[in-house]
């Protein structure tokens, strides 16, 4: 599709990393689920790993501007999230698939993605094209005019990804996007991630270490609300050389790094 580029789109970026967190603290209910996290993420696909309760979802919710940080600083696209920040302009650049993806069951896939594009303030002229592209990219074109309630679990997840990318976000947050996808669909999803990685900062929270190794340019491992490890997937695999439990090098690396971190955290106390 041919369209003119606005000045804002061609302007050089003036920040280091789409996402910058320093000493970030975010509350989940009464608990401080993210507790002193330092993290810088630029363009690419970042796999967010960590055990249950590590604060992955809380971090994702803070990055999606749903939760306000309780302490520290969080900068998205160069603007700090505190005081009178223009959330509205920032949110236009964010795509978010929550862990629990809520949807209107009576809407068709196209209607729902279109509705989300409207909520994200995508200019009206661009909406039909953007909706069609998003639906095609997740491979749901043949079900586009079926009601949401008729979709299977994996299809719903893909509809969720379609609504997340419909506004061509610069920050794309996907909380467990591969749940319910069959092996073939997961391969397609990895392809989509690689495609997005060129110009988007994608954060994918997952339990599947193999997904991270296969499709991510960068691994972020957190535990108890803190950063344990950040590096490329091959570094994670190398960490597994020295033992650890798991069926693959990456899984062994995951357990080794977690154990080391917990050991040093105990020692510090």
């Amino acid at each position, binding site marked *: 599709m041919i369209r003119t580029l606005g000045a804002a789109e061609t302007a050089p970026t003036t920040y280091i990393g789409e996402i910058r967190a320093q000493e970030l603290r975010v509350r989940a209910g009464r608990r401080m689920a993210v507790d002193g996290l330092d993290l810088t993420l630029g363009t690419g696909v970042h796999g967010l790993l960590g055990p249950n309760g590590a604060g992955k979802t809380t971090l994702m919710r803070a990055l999606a501007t749903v939760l306000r940080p309780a302490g520290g600083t969080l900068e998205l696209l160069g603007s700090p999230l505190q005081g009178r920040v223009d959330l509205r302009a920032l949110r236009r650049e964010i795509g978010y698939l929550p862990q629990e*993806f*809520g*949807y*209107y069951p009576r*809407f068709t896939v196209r209607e729902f993605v279109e*509705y*989300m594009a409207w909520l994200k*303030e995508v200019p009206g002229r661009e*909406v039909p094209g953007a909706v069609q592209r998003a639906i095609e990219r997740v491979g749901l074109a043949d079900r586009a005019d079926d009601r949401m309630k008729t979709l299977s679990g994996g299809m719903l997840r893909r509809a969720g990804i379609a609504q997340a990318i419909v506004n061509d976000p610069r920050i794309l947050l996907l909380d467990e996007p591969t749940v319910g996808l069959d092996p073939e669909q997961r391969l397609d999803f990895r392809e989509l991630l690689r495609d997005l990685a060129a110009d988007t900062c994608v954060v994918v929270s997952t339990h599947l270490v193999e997904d991270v190794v296969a499709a991510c340019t960068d691994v972020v491992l957190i535990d108890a609300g803190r950063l344990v490890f950040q590096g490329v997937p091959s570094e994670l695999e190398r960490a597994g050389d020295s033992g650890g439990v798991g069926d693959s090098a990456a899984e062994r690396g995951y357990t080794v790094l977690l154990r080391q971190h917990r050991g040093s955290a105990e020692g510090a106390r």
Partner: protein
Amino acid sequence: MMARVLRTELRRSSALWTAIALVVLGAAMLYPVVDAWGGRWMPLALWQREYLFVLWPMALGAGAWQARRESRAKVGELFGATPRPRWQRVAPTAGAMAVAMVAGYLGMFAAGAVSVVPSAGYFPLGLLPVVAVGALSVVAAVVLGLAIGRMAPSAFTPPALAVGGLVLLITLPLGLRQRR
């Protein structure tokens, strides 16, 4: 874009069903007393207005039911990360429900008109404001219902509003009459 969203809301929200329910319920209340208004326009309009004491609480409940859609579908998290202000998000929903109310009220009048047209010779223009005010009042009820349903998004809110409104509208005139 607003027009597209409004069209989606008209088709996918409870607006369509609410309008149909209003026509059916309205006709079911009008026809048992057809002797009182059959063949004459103004009595039809006045009888329809009389039944607002049922239609009004029903509209209130319908609005509250529609307002619960977001919490029912658990879309708060998803919508909470979007830039569009909440009042703009609610506008097409309220618009669709208002259109449904006007259509339903006029549909009920049309259902009655079937028994008026064959024999009525005189069409008093004075009934137009009577019908218009009635339609406006059910629109007001549905919007009020939407607002209350948003403030109290409980499964009990819509039936409580409908029943409570009905009881209030039945007892209020009785109470006022006793004072006199």
